[in-house]
């Protein structure tokens, strides 16, 4: 416990240095902006800003990127409530009740509760990272290659369970992602794999390139399908009275608590993340409510729970990255990229070798959350005005910014073309109802999985039973198998579909 406080204090010293405070502020502001603007997501933004962090010190760079991630969770709620356009996938469910509240003239309390819930969840998650960090790092030392492999299988199965739509399609997307990750040189033998003698492919497909393609370009092309003029049902009247009433506070407190707990858990699990956390929290609220019919008509719990959950999940998803070195979702995978750029290998050693980085980042999250709650409520007016920028001007800007961003990662024009190709692939995937998120997760975990699989089999002298004879690995695989069976069972499947149809109702 003493250690914990010493560490946190150290972290605050790092995070409170002027440069890092500025980075935190920039990250939080950019994140909010991204969250507010629909049509540009967190993944594309973090990928776009990766090259920008080249010139920054590593701690500042990671503080900024982390700020973007949780800042986007705040920003997304603003547009969901005021305009009924979720700026982020994580705020889709917030729009259901939040916009109804805005229509009843209660936009102020809705925004305030969303901010308060997010702040509370952010605080809890920050403490959770600090508390769980050290013990999990110890656990990581007990992990051999077999355990790592099984853990990643579990993570991928989670991604399948949590992806919406067909289980089969989600698994296929993961395998496709694994295959994509194998393009390039083999880690052990150096043999060129599936690169067709194209020198640019010898190094493999860049993760940022693929992410920008399937999440940035594909999204733009898809939005253009519907025509650039989106229907913006803006709540025009001035927002008065930010303060929620006493009743609002009493109603939303348990919802915030439940959302925070649920979000924290789903964030830690590999394959989870902020999107699923908000959906799950909304469903839970509806289940425990005495009068579920209020939901969809402006129930404040419907705003409080998902907003707390997505913010908690956004932060706790740093735990597996910092302790085990396994990115649990696509944004975290990009963080791995950012760390690698600065010569930091994520994993159990980071906590010991880079205390500045880890604890500085953790402390900055709390500071960032504080900044967000202070700057966001007064800035609501500005964010809303930004939404009046028509999409016909916004999308070419995003295209150019993405293109410059990809080019500057490696100074390679081929990367830009590849991102374009993946944009088309992503568009096709959307049209055929394939989810791109599992694909990216597969691509992220591919090299790690293959490496550990090969190492485990080498150590066991080719004996595949090593995965079930080592206790930890066996437990992880058993959980994965159990989850998969449960998902396919018709009973639970109906429930899962119910969770995901929430957004359309």
């Amino acid at each position, binding site marked *: 416990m003493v250690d914990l406080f010493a560490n946190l204090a150290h972290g605050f010293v790092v995070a409170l240095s002027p440069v890092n405070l500025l980075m935190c502020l920039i990250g939080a502001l950019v994140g909010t902006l991204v969250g507010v603007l629909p049509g540009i997501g967190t993944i594309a933004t973090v990928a776009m800003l990766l*090259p*920008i962090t*080249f*010139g920054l010190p590593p701690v500042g760079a990671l503080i900024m990127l982390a700020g973007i991630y949780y800042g986007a969770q705040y920003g997304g709620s603003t547009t969901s409530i005021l305009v009924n356009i979720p700026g982020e996938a994580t705020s889709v469910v917030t729009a259901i009740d939040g916009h109804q509240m805005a229509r009843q003239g209660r936009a102020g309390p809705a925004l305030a509760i969303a901010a308060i819930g997010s702040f509370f969840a952010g605080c809890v998650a920050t403490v959770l990272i600090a508390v769980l960090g050290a013990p999990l790092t110890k656990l990581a030392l007990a992990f051999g290659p077999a355990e790592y492999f099984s853990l990643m299988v579990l993570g991928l199965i989670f991604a399948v369970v949590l992806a919406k739509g*067909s289980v*089969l*399609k989600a*698994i*296929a997307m993961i*395998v*496709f992602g*694994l*295959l994509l990750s*194998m393009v390039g040189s*083999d880690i*052990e*033998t150096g*043999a060129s*794999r*599936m690169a*067709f003698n194209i020198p640019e492919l010898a190094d493999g497909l860049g993760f940022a390139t693929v992410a920008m393609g399937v999440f940035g*370009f594909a999204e*733009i*092309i898809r*939005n*253009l*399908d519907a*025509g650039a003029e989106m229907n913006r049902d803006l709540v025009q009247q001035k927002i008065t009275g930010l303060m929620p009433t006493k009743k609002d506070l009493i109603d939303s407190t348990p919802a915030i608590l439940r959302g925070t707990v649920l979000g924290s858990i789903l964030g830690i699990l590999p394959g989870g993340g902020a999107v699923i956390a908000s959906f799950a929290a909304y469903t839970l609220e509806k289940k425990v409510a005495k009068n579920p019919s209020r939901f969809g008509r402006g129930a404040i719990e419907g705003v409080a729970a998902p907003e707390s959950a997505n913010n908690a999940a956004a932060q706790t998803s740093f735990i597996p990255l910092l302790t085990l070195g396994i990115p649990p979702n696509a944004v975290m995978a990009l963080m791995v990229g950012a760390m690698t750029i600065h010569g930091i290998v994520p994993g159990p050693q980071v906590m010991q070798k880079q205390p500045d980085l880890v604890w500085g980042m953790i402390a900055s999250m709390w500071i960032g959350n504080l900044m967000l709650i202070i700057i966001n409520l007064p800035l609501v007016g500005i964010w809303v005005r930004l939404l009046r920028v028509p999409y*016909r*001007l916004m*999308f*070419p800007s995003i*295209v*150019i*910014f993405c*293109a*410059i961003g990809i*080019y*500057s990662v490696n*100074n390679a*024009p*081929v990367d*830009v*073309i590849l*991102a*374009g*190709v993946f*944009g*088309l*692939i992503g*568009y096709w995937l959307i*049209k*055929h*109802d394939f989810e791109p998120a599992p694909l990216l997760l597969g691509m992220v975990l591919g090299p790690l999985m*293959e490496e550990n*699989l*090969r190492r485990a089999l*080498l150590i066991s*002298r*080719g004996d595949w039973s090593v995965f079930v004879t080592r206790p930890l690995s066996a437990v992880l695989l058993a959980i994965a198998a159990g989850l998969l069976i449960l998902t396919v069972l018709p009973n639970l499947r109906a429930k899962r579909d119910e969770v995901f149809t929430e957004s359309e109702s």
Partner: protein
Amino acid sequence: MADTMGQPATATRNTRVALWILVLALAPQIFELIWSIGTIVGWGSGRGPLQVLVAHASALLAGAPGAVFGSHDAKKAFPPDVLLALIYSYPLFAVAIVTLFMTVRSAQDYVGGIVLMALGLFALWASSDLQGMHGFSFGAGTAPRMFGVLLVALSVAIALTGLLSEGAGLSHYAWRGPLFVMASILFFALAIRPLGLVVSAFTSFLIAAMGTHETRWTETVIVGASLTLGCALLFPYVLGLPMPMFPRFLVQ
């Protein structure tokens, strides 16, 4: 892979789907043929178009059937063209023929499954020249082949659900957005080195703006110019990323 994108917008009849699968089955060969045209004017290296045509035609018509019926010398490895025909094209031909006699209940799932299957088969072919298991250690090709087989199996299952259960048909593809956004990206990639950031960013902005008919040109030009200016200041100066700013012939 880009050439697998052109799925028909409203394919309801099976013959059309089957024809598209046929094209898909020959897509790598066609792609190499188009690519090889560049060698005539001296771009890139590789086989000339005539060589490509003869090699693939003989592989498809003679080499692969010969291999199937055992006339091939078992000790010699198959040449890659024959392998491509064997691993990739023939299975897809079979699928195309089967498609003709099937009722497709959900074209979205069916076509999606088939295209993924093609990708899986293609990966199998692409990793066929790599070393496999030796002893108990993995070769370079073991994992790609493992996941390739897995992808083919999964996509067959997806295609089967498209045959067995009702579902969505093919959705409509717009052409304007994808075309101009892709053109803009392509132009940027080709122009950034010779023409520099200022010219390529501004031109790409204008090309991308053509992606919707709602564009109003005055505001687009103004926004494009200010965005270009902003990027020209942000990337090279504020962030210190090396990037050519102006066309090469002007700087010299």
